[in-house]
C-alpha cells in the first residue's frame, strides 16, 4: 500500500502552499488516475510520492514505513519530457541499464530496438526515448509507478502501445500505478478510479473522487465547491 497522508508542499519555508492536505491510497496492482488542469501542483505531488522531494507537511508511506532515502526506490517516476530524464552525454544502452538489466521480453513489449541503444538521446525521437525511460523505471524492485503526463507529448499509437506494455507489466507483477493526466479518456481507459482536482482558486485545494472513493481520500477541502467546479 502506497499512502500519502495529509501531504502539503511549498517552496521554501514561507512560500505560498502549492497544495495542502492531500490524501491518497494506492493498493498493490491498483491503477489510480489523478486528473486536473495544469498548474495545480500535480507534478510536484508525483515528485513527493517518488521521493524526488521531501514533503513540507505530511508523510508518504510505503507499506506503513517511510520511503527509503538511499538505494533503489520502490516508487519510480516516469516524467513528461523524456529528453530531460536521460543524460544527454550517455549512449542510451547505458541509460537503460543504469539500475538493472531489463529482460528482452520487456524491451520487446515496449518496442525498443537494439539499434537505439548505441545512439545518443538527441538522435532518437521523444517516443523512442520515453520507451527507454519506462523500461528503466520498471525494475524488479519497483512496486509503484508514478506516470506524470507520461504520454502527453506522444502520438496516439505510441501512447496506446506504451500504456499497453506498462499495464501488462503492472498486472503480471502486481505493480500499482498513479497516472497523472489531463486526458479524461485515457484515465478512463487505464484506471480503476480517478481523483479529480479542480483549480478554481489556483491551488489543488479542492477535489472530488469521480469513481468509488473510500472515505477520507482525495483532497481535504470544500467538497461542494469542488463538485460545482467539476460539473
Amino acid at each position, binding site marked *: 500500500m502506497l499512502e500519502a497522508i495529509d501531504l502539503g508542499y511549498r517552496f521554501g519555508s514561507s512560500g505560498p502552499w502549492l497544495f495542502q492536505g492531500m490524501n491518497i491510497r494506492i493498493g498493490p496492482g491498483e491503477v489510480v488516475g489523478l486528473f486536473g488542469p495544469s498548474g495545480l501542483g500535480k507534478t510536484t505531488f508525483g515528485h513527493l510520492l517518488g521521493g524526488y522531494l521531501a514533503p513540507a507537511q505530511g508523510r508518504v508511506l510505503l507499506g506503513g514505513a517511510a520511503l527509503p532515502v538511499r538505494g533503489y526506490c520502490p516508487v519510480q517516476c516516469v516524467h513528461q519530457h523524456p529528453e*530531460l530524464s536521460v543524460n544527454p552525454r550517455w549512449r542510451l544502452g547505458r541509460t537503460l541499464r543504469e*539500475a538493472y538489466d531489463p529482460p528482452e521480453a520487456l524491451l520487446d513489449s515496449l518496442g525498443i530496438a537494439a539499434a537505439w541503444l548505441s545512439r545518443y538521446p538527441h538522435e532518437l525521437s521523444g517516443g523512442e526515448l520515453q520507451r527507454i525511460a519506462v523500461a528503466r523505471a520498471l525494475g524488479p524492485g519497483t512496486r509503484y509507478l508514478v506516470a506524470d503526463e507520461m504520454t502527453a507529448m506522444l502520438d496516439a499509437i505510441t501512447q496506446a502501445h506504451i500504456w499497453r506494455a506498462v499495464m501488462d507489466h503492472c498486472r503480471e507483477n502486481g505493480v500499482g500505478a498513479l497516472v497523472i493526466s489531463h486526458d479524461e479518456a485515457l484515465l478512463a481507459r487505464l484506471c480503476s478510479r480517478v481523483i479529480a482536482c479542480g483549480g478554481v482558486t489556483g491551488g489543488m485545494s479542492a477535489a472530488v473522487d469521480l469513481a468509488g472513493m473510500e472515505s477520507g481520500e482525495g483532497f481535504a477541502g470544500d467538497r461542494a465547491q469542488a463538485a460545482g467546479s467539476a460539473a
Partner: protein
Amino acid sequence: MTQCATLVTTPFRGFGRLLGLDCRRTRLLWAVGICLGVFAGIFALAAGLGTAGLDPHLAVRNQAPSLAHPFGTDPLGRDMLTRTVRGLLLSLKVGLLASLVSSVLALVLGVASATFGRAVDAVVNWLVDIFMTIPHLVLLILISFAAGGGSRGVIVAVAFSHWPALTRIIRSEVLQLRGALYVRTARRLGRSHWEIARTHLLPHLLPQFLIGLILLFPHAILHEAALSFLGIGLSPHTPAVGILLSESMRHLSTGYWWLGILPGAALMLMVKCFDILGTNIDRLSDPRTAQE
C-alpha cells in the same frame, strides 16, 4: 512540376574538398591542428633561433624588417624576432601556470559552493563578487605588489585573479546538474552520491573545465603582457611581450613601426589561437553540436 531548390550548398570545391573542408568536423579538426601547430612553431622557433639575437649589436640598430631580421631590430640592435619569440614563450609559461592554478581554484571553489550548503555558497559568492567588482588591472597590481613584486609577483597576480568567472560557471553547472531530472532519477534508481558524481557530473564537468582552462589562457597572457607593459614585476631585460610593447611606445613617433606592430600582432595571433582552440574543442566535445 518538381522544382528543385537546393537550400544548402557547400561552398568548397576542388582543393578545399580534397582537404575535407566541406565537412564541418574536419574543418574543426583542421582549426585545432593549426592552432596546436602555431604553439609548436613558437617552441621550434625559439629553439632554432637560440639566444644570440638577445645580445645587442649596435651595428645593426633600428633596422626595418628584412630577410636577416624578419621582425627588424631595436635601438640596441637586438633581433626583434628572437625577442618576440622568447616573449611569447614566457607568456605561454606564465599563461599555463596561471590558468592551471586559476582553473583548479575555480573547480574546487565552484564545486564546494554548489555542494557544501548555504554557508559555503555564501562565502564563495561573496569572494567572487569582491574579486569581480574590483577593476581587474587594479587587482592585478595589488596582488602583484602584495606577493613581493618581481616575476613571481606577476605570476601570482595573474594566477589568483582569474578564478572568479570560471568559479561561477562551474558552480552554476554543478547546481544545474544536481537539479537535472536525470541526476535526480539516478538517485532514485539507487545510485550513490559518489557514483553519480563519477558517472554523471564528472563527464559533464570535465570538458567544461578543460575548455574553461584553455579559454583562461588568452586572459592570463594578455594580463601578463599588460602588467609587464606597465612596468610592474618583470625586469626590463626580460624579453616579455609587454616589455617589448612598452619599449616600442617610446619609438612610435620616430617611425620604427615594427617594434610595436609585429610583436603585438604575434601576441594577438597566439591569443586568438587559444580562443579558436577552446571554442572548437567545445563544439567537438558536445554530442549535439558535434554532428553539425
